């Protein structure tokens, strides 16, 4: 089902946290609300499920305006960060609770619970209590409970934040698999860009109650609209150099790095610009040599990360296939791929 937020506004005690936000989540898509803490992503999620009342605008599920409907009538499945399982009930009763509340018949409940338990791979755990489950299993139960009454939309609030690294990897693909198999529209709230990029069809990056950009992960990564988006996506993060235009080229006076501006862009001489260079575009193939000193090196097995300090102190990060001929303190002259450089104006907009 398609979810639409129209001019959605939320205020807390007179403070406007979200001001006239517009968002469309397509039918069957998984969308990530990504942003630093305090950007309003959880507030948006809780408004969609009805925990927060909207102060302005509309929330539409398909054609249905749910803005003033209580949570109970919205038919939304929510997975909370701490799973919020009912500790005094067995796994079966946890999953059956939404159906019992709806007064389904015993046979229907048993069948539906079994179906969803098989989908989430917890069929053999139905007799246990939540306290006897591991974090990943609890997560599956929470997912099953949210999905069992076939909601119009599934909301996930930082679902992986309480898991350890290995389980996180496993649950990432599991949640995605379950979402694809059920074909449900899903919204994922997270501050972790890896989660957002690996699990979702589209990402909405939020900051200060505004959506800065909505795009598929790949487009978002290669084509950020602002320097904030460019800096938020990517690990290790993008590095920025400040400079100005000179005869149609970008010049960083402190380091002498000169780069051609992207084709079709004309900027007045002397305009201040920032250039963003992703670590994979510095270090091996490229057309512009940059001299600097390696100040930090980290081995990750398959790849190495280097921080290179330029003469004026600016840092460029580099990701390269593992090598052991470069150590911290070495002077290097590495190639920079100017075609992949991203140019931003001083107020952060992409050229």
């Amino acid at each position, binding site marked *: 089902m398609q979810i639409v937020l129209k001019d959605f506004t939320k205020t807390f005690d007179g403070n406007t946290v979200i001001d006239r936000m517009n968002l469309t989540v397509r039918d069957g898509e998984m969308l990530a609300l990504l942003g630093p803490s305090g950007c309003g992503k959880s507030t948006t999620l809780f408004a969609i499920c009805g925990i927060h009342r909207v102060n302005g605008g509309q929330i539409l599920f398909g054609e249905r305006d749910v803005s003033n409907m209580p949570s109970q009538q919205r038919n939304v499945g*929510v997975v*909370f960060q701490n799973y919020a399982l009912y500790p005094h009930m067995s796994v079966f009763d946890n999953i059956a609770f939404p159906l019992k509340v709806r007064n389904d018949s015993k046979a229907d409940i048993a069948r539906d619970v079994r179906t969803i338990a098989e989908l989430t791979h917890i069929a053999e755990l139905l007799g246990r209590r939540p306290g006897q489950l591991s974090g990943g299993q609890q997560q599956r139960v929470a997912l099953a409970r949210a999905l069992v009454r076939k909601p119009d939309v599934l909301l996930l609030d930082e679902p992986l934040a309480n898991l350890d690294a290995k389980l996180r990897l496993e649950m990432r693909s599991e949640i995605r698999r379950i979402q694809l198999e059920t074909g449900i529209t899903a919204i994922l709230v997270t501050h972790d860009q890896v989660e957002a990029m690996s699990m979702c069809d589209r990402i909405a990056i939020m900051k200060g109650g505004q959506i800065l950009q909505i795009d598929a992960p790949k487009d978002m990564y290669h084509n950020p609209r602002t320097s904030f988006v460019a800096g938020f996506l990517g690990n290790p993060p993008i590095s920025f150099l400040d400079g100005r235009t000179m005869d149609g080229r970008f010049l960083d006076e402190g380091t002498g790095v000169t780069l051609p501006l992207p084709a079709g862009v004309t900027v007045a001489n002397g305009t201040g610009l920032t250039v963003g260079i992703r670590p994979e575009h510095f270090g091996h193939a490229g057309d512009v040599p940059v001299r600097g000193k390696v100040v930090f090196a980290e081995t990750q097995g398959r790849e190495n990360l280097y921080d290179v300090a330029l003469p004026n102190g600016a840092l460029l990060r580099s990701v390269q296939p593992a090598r052991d001929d470069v150590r911290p303190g070495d002077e290097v002259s590495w190639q920079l791929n100017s075609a992949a450089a991203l140019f931003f104006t001083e107020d952060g907009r992409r050229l």
Partner: protein
Amino acid sequence: MTRNFANWPIVLVLLIISTPIIIMYAFLVIDTVTTSPPGSAIPNGFTLSHWRFLIDPTATGDVWRPTLTTILFTASIVVIVLGISSTAGYALSRLNMPFRRYFLAVVLVMHAFPLVTLIIGVFLVLQFVGLYNTLTGVVLVKAGLMLPFGIWIMKGFYDTVPWEIEMAGVQDGASRFTVWRKLILPQVKPGLFALALFAAIDAWGEYMLPRILAPSADFEVLSIYLNTVSDPDSTTYNFNLFKSVGLFYTLPILALYAIFRDRLMNIFGGGTKG
């Protein structure tokens, strides 16, 4: 388990300090089934005659009617205290109601007043509503005086239940009442249980209120009954009989305490185990 210091000195000190109490309790039990010569504390014969009051009302009057009255008295108070504390505590913990903080502060202040400072006001109110000298009146007053404590304790227990459980219940389609009844109440069960025990023990031992607020009523609770038995001016005065009735009166509380000791400690833990 390793310890930093030996246990026995502590046990010894506690034992010495508690000796008078232990001896007192021991004789409370021993004297009810023995006879001892006048002027001596050492018993010289076994007898069950002090317990005759259980079947023979001639000596002290019927004991079973006061017992039933006390059970009714205690049960009513427990029901009222539990009913109101469990709902009021929830409201104070969760609902965004006006004057919430103010109300909490007042409840706490109420808890601070000793009974005797309130008794004149309570007396006047009972007189006014016509419940003076009735069992209902005493039950209401006793329950009312225990409520500040009960509400405060229950609020503490509700505070430890995560918000998300409530939100999850609402998302699952349950009404706020169903959420409270089916999801929240089971989590505060240890608190309810401990509060019920506390209320029961407290109500069972109540002497002052029935004495003051129902002095000439036609009912008698066990504490009052015990008082009539122990009256040295009465014709039936018998110290061993008094002890037997006293033991009879204390036993249910001792039993409750012995059986549910662990649960009683819960009330100070203020929450469910994760």
